[in-house]
């Protein structure tokens, strides 16, 4: 282990001040705000590491391109991914750069409160396993609309599903792109504009040429690198304390300005309603994220679908325990050495580069400059991989749901559908870069939370009710879905994080008092679906209800499922 102070000083010069403002509850999400980072001098080690990663992934894309011929190859890697591989890929989608940097930074600043967040991000997975995973696999083909609209009138449900997917993808994507630009400016010393174009271009190459196969493998490699790097850091920290958490905690309490308070829940969770509401958004939002749902169609059968969530849950849980140790490791390693890591050598002025840089500084402290470069490259790779997954799910919503099913009523050949996907991919790539540039100076922290709230309030209720409730009708599902979508967006706009922080109305004027709309918007969607379906006396409604037994047979047994092996 290297504690070379020279290295640290070089690093401190490389990463100068950025004004990362304190972000409220829920903001430290998968794409937490990385603040307005100042451009740094170029960090060649990190760029070299990143270059190696990109070269390796492009080689994979070339290999994958040779295998990507049909629409099924493009959307779902031909259903040929194993449960273990898919579990890693799902974990990769979920462990974004900012959940790594954001949560470890949160632990560094507040200790225990960071753990509360990690748990929230994890608990949605069992629900997906028990109630959704295998049914998704048995009913779905390319998009979640295949599942939600199995027995419904195709046009309305697919229009809704495409709206739900694209809105979620857009918010998630903006947060990732802005985060990417800030992070790259900070870690690599690259111009924001070039950083955006670089991310957009590389991502497009993965998706266009390699489709789901390349996107999945990029995600798997990145997940392994991230888990490996984080494991190394956590071990390096634990070794310092002879693997005694108590020794680590007592050192942390000794050096941290909040003393004992870092060991107990603090002010981060301000009221119970917000706590539960954020919890609901995280728990059910995961089951409504289109780029996660899409992964269930890449495995051959229900057995592998279950295994993939099992592995995903395991890796994500393990990863959050690591980030917790890394956060405490940052406290014990960085605070005793203020000259190297803190602005002006003063702990009170905050970390050089901002609060989200705790893990990055720690990587330099325990592994030297090369390891710092490695971790920076992994953080960049992470954003690239997540953006690629998002683009692919957005492209499939447009080409499969809107173009092939709504516009052409299913009368379309694979080559045409594939062409539309690729055109959409290019459009989405350009839009992502443009939005990333447009939102550069904005506070985008709320956007990931918004993506989760919408996923939980629009996509999830429709999916859940259409699969599990026989009385659900097209009219109920579509109305309820839109009610959930609109409620979620409206209430989020009224909350302090948008009304005051983004729209700049005076402090205290926000008319929605909680951090997350989920506690209201999720029930609103469910109740509307239930009520409208119940009152639906149309002929289409009767057809929808009559279609349930056939849907249930397939969702429960997999008989007739596309590509299900052995059946």
């Amino acid at each position, binding site marked *: 282990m290297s504690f070379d102070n020279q290295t640290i000083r070089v690093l401190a010069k490389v990463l100068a001040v950025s004004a990362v403002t304190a972000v409220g509850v829920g903001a430290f999400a998968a794409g937490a705000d990385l603040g307005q980072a100042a451009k740094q001098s170029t960090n060649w080690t990190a760029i070299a590491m990143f270059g190696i990663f990109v070269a390796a992934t492009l080689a994979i894309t070339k290999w994958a391109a040779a295998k990507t011929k049909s629409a099924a190859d493009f959307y779902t890697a031909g259903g040929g991914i194993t449960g273990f591989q898919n579990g890693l890929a799902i974990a990769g989608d979920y462990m974004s750069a900012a959940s790594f940097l954001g949560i470890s930074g949160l632990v560094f600043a507040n200790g225990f409160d960071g753990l509360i967040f*990690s*748990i929230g991000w994890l608990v949605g997975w*069992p629900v997906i396993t*028990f109630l959704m995973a295998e049914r998704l696999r048995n009913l779905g083909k390319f998009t979640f609309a295949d599942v939600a609209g199995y027995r419904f009138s195709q046009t309305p449900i697919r229009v809704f599903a495409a709206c739900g997917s694209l809105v979620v993808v857009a918010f998630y994507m903006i947060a990732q792109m802005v985060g990417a630009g800030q992070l790259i400016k900070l870690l690599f010393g690259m111009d924001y504009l070039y950083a955006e174009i670089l991310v957009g271009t590389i991502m497009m190459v993965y998706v266009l040429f390699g489709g789901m196969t390349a996107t999945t493998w990029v995600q798997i490699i990145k997940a392994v690198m991230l888990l490996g790097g984080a494991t190394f850091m956590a071990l390096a920290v634990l070794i310092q304390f002879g693997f005694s958490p108590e020794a680590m905690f007592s050192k942390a309490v000794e050096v941290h300005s909040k003393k004992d308070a870092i*060991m107990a829940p603090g002010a981060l969770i301000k009221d*119970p309603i917000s706590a539960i509401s954020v919890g609901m958004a995280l728990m059910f939002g995961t089951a409504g994220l289109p780029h996660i749902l899409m992964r269930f169609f890449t495995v051959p059968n229900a057995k592998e679908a279950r295994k993939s969530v099992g592995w995903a849950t*395991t890796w994500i849980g393990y990863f959050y325990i690591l980030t917790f140790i890394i956060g405490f490791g940052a406290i014990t390693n960085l605070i005793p050495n203020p000259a190297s890591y803190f602005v002006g050598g003063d702990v009170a002025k905050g970390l050089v580069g901002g609060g989200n840089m705790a893990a990055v500084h720690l990587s330099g402290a325990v592994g030297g400059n090369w390891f710092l470069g490695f971790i920076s490259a992994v953080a960049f790779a992470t954003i690239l991989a997540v953006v690629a997954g998002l683009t692919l799910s957005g492209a499939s919503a447009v080409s499969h749901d809107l173009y092939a099913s709504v516009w052409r009523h299913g009368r379309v050949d694979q080559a045409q559908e594939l062409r539309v996907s690729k055109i959409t991919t290019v459009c989405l790539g350009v839009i992502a870069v443009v939005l990333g540039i447009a939102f550069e100076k904005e506070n985008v922290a709320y956007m990931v939370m918004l993506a989760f709230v919408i996923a939980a309030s629009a996509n999830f209720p429709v999916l859940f009710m259409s699969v599990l409730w026989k009385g659900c009708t097209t009219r109920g599902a579509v109305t309820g879905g839109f009610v959930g979508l609109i409620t979620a967006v409206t209430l989020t706009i009224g909350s302090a994080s948008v009304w005051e922080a983004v729209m700049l109305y005076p402090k205290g004027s926000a008319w929605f008092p909680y951090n997350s709309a989920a506690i209201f918007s999720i029930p609103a969607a469910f109740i509307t679906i239930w009520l409208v379906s119940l009152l639906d006396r149309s002929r289409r409604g009767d057809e929808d209800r009559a279609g349930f037994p*056939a849907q249930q047979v397939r969702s*429960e047994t997999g*008989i007739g499922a596309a590509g299900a092996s052995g059946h």
Partner: protein
Amino acid sequence: MDDPMVARVTNHPLYHELKSKRSGFGWWLTLAGMVAYYGFILLVAFNKPLLAQKIGGGVTTVGMPLGVAVIVFTIVITWIYIRRANSEFDSLTDRIIKGVVK
């Protein structure tokens, strides 16, 4: 899927056994997961002193192992479901399929 096939499956006695066993098990585990998580969140919201209580003479608080336990519990119940589904439920499914596809 054709209608006679749907009727053959829905009339199969094992199909009902599969449905009720699987959904019962799934809902119970969902409940367990929710109780663990929201129980923890409610403690954070309403009983901070309990979580802040120190264990033994050290600085480690009750909340630390409890929080990690929620993470581990989440992983464990996920695998419990998968183990049973991949053996018992899948073999039930296979028997149903063999029974109806002749």
